């Protein structure tokens, strides 16, 4: 049996778990290639025109894989922690993909708000469907869980002093997708800047930083972004923050106000917000990044 995992959205966060689990269950995993022009075009054609860019890209990947595999794995990720959801679009993602054509989808319900047990159960039900017995399923789950934890632990790194440090506050699925973000991370590095991603901040530091918010945020991945930005600003770890927003991203449109308010106005840290969409041109994008970097190094040299 061949399973397909679209290389978009939460793939960038949970890939080791998903792949590990399916492979331990004896399924061949096929991944779509990194986003390219054809995939993006297909996604933009098929998806609802007003929906956010990452979801359009996801459509493209799903369509690319649909004919090549026996089923697509699209988990319905509802809550990854208590008291916070992911995003309405992620909640409805399997249903949305099902709307386009007759793709076959396996969609375990990930709701950690209901406790860890239901989480294990929903993966076990996938194993049931694959015809794997419970014992083997449990081992597959454990191995995959371990892989995921190692993957997450590897990402954490503390900040080194010296050099121009830039925090990239944005969803990993838009920043790590090189086609969408025009290779933002490498470009910044080649300009001599040290780049830090939101997911590199440990959950504990993030939670401490978020405590000062009067109303807690109820989207997990936005908590990650805003928490990281606030942590960097509070500890003065970076010289500037680039807030990467994709067009029509719902939660980010409000978080932009929070970040500007909490980071830029409170601590005087420069924040630039970049909006990615399918029409953005690389040149304009580069000019803005260069201008921002110039401004930061000028400020570092003591300019006011």
């Amino acid at each position, binding site marked *: 049996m061949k399973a397909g995992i679209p290389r978009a959205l939460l793939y960038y966060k949970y890939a080791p778990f998903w792949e590990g689990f399916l492979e331990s269950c004896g399924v061949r995993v096929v991944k779509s290639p990194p986003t390219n022009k054809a995939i993006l075009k297909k996604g933009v054609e098929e998806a609802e025109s007003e929906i956010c860019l990452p979801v359009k890209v996801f459509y493209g990947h799903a369509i690319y894989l649909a004919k090549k595999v026996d089923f697509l794995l699209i988990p319905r990720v509802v809550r990854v922690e208590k008291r916070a*959801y992911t995003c*309405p*679009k992620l*909640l*409805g993602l399997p249903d*949305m993909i099902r709307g386009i054509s007759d793709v076959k989808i396996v969609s375990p319900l990930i709701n950690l708000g209901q406790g860890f047990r239901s989480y294990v159960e929903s993966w076990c039900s996938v194993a049931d469907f694959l015809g794997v017995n419970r014992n083997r399923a449990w081992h597959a789950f454990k191995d995959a869980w371990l892989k995921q934890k190692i993957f997450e632990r590897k990402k954490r790194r503390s900040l080194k002093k010296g050099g121009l440090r830039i925090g990239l506050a944005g969803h990993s699925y838009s920043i790590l997708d090189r086609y969408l973000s025009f290779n933002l991370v490498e470009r910044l590095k080649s300009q001599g800047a040290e780049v830090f991603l939101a997911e590199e901040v440990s959950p504990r530091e993030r939670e401490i930083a978020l405590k000062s918010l009067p109303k807690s945020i109820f989207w997990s991945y936005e908590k990650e972004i805003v928490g990281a930005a606030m942590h960097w600003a509070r500890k003065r770890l970076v010289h500037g923050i680039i807030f990467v927003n994709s067009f029509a991203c719902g939660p980010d449109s409000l978080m932009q106000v929070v970040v500007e308010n909490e980071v830029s106005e409170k601590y005087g840290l420069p924040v630039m917000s970049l909006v990615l969409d399918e029409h953005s041109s690389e040149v304009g994008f580069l000019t803005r990044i260069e201008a921002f970097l110039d401004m930061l190094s000028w400020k570092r040299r003591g300019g006011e």
Partner: protein
Amino acid sequence: MKVTFPHMGHVYILLKDILGRLDVECVIPPPNSLKTIKLGVQHAPELACYPLKVTLGNFIEGLEKGADTLIMAGGVGPCRFGYYAETQRRILERLGYEFKMVIVEPPTAHPFLFYRAFKRIAPKKKLRELWKALKVSFYKAQTMDLMERESLKVRPFEKRKGETTRVLNKWRKRLDDAFSYEEISFIKEEALGEISSLKEVEREVLKVGFVGEFYLVLEPFINFNLEEVLGRRGIYLERSVYLTDWIGPTSDNPVGGWSNEKVATAAGPYLSHFVGGEGRATVGHIVIYVYEGFDGILHLMPFTCMPELVARSIFPRLQRELDVPILSLIFDEQTGKAGLLTRIEAFIDLLWVRRKRGLLPRKDKITWFPGGSYQPQLFGFKRR
């Protein structure tokens, strides 16, 4: 302390009533106008949804009228609405207004925060007094909802154009001034009687389901008073959302008539998980309207609304499988009335043609109400 709140349909009747009963002075912001929209759009983030922008405009106008306390509903997600208050507070503070923002969280999710909000609005009142006030005010709002529902039913059959709206406005005014429970129930009897007596003409009408995002369906200025415009053209409308169903404590939706569970079951085969806001209710109501033999569906949503976009992404499948015509309209500050009406007229013509040819939505394709909640795990496979 002068309290102000945003507009949304007749929500001002409810809030004015509650605040009056709690002896809190309130300033009703001027009704929504182009100025409100302009003010909101100017200061809100570009990609925020339309209701945030308009309610921000309401707040600015209310503050300019002398209010110093703002009331806004909160929420626990995943719809953006739950974070409106916080965002608007930050924007207004940046603009230099001095005010207190009271976020009223839903009492079921955050009982303590709800209590604290209540104490900040009315420090001297007890919870029991709030309960008493809420009961009467809620009854008042529900009466208003019932009157609106009745008016939707009779408007296509009225003898003189605009009669229903005139009668409705008359009773709305009287209801606004009513105080005691007895008075309200008297008005309820009289008003419902008078409105239903307006049904005088017999004519063939189209039946259209009116679904969509809450704010847009409820707020007549923002949706260009579509209910009335369509009613006058001989369209029998049925609305999916009502104010008191939404804020009410029970899930059986006495005004709308379809309980949350039933709507969820109906939506099940198409959207099997709730997605916040009205997303699942929209899909569920479309299936229900098809089942009830409606001719078409009119769907309203604000630009970038997340739950409605999920619902809208499922429309192609609904249209393919149930053969139901859906006109989905996206509203933002750029929407113009003329272009909108042209599209609606074309849609109505299409529905008439379909009816003449005997093409109705395929209600025989609906595979729902098999009992129990539908929880699909594996899509496209046979369930074992």
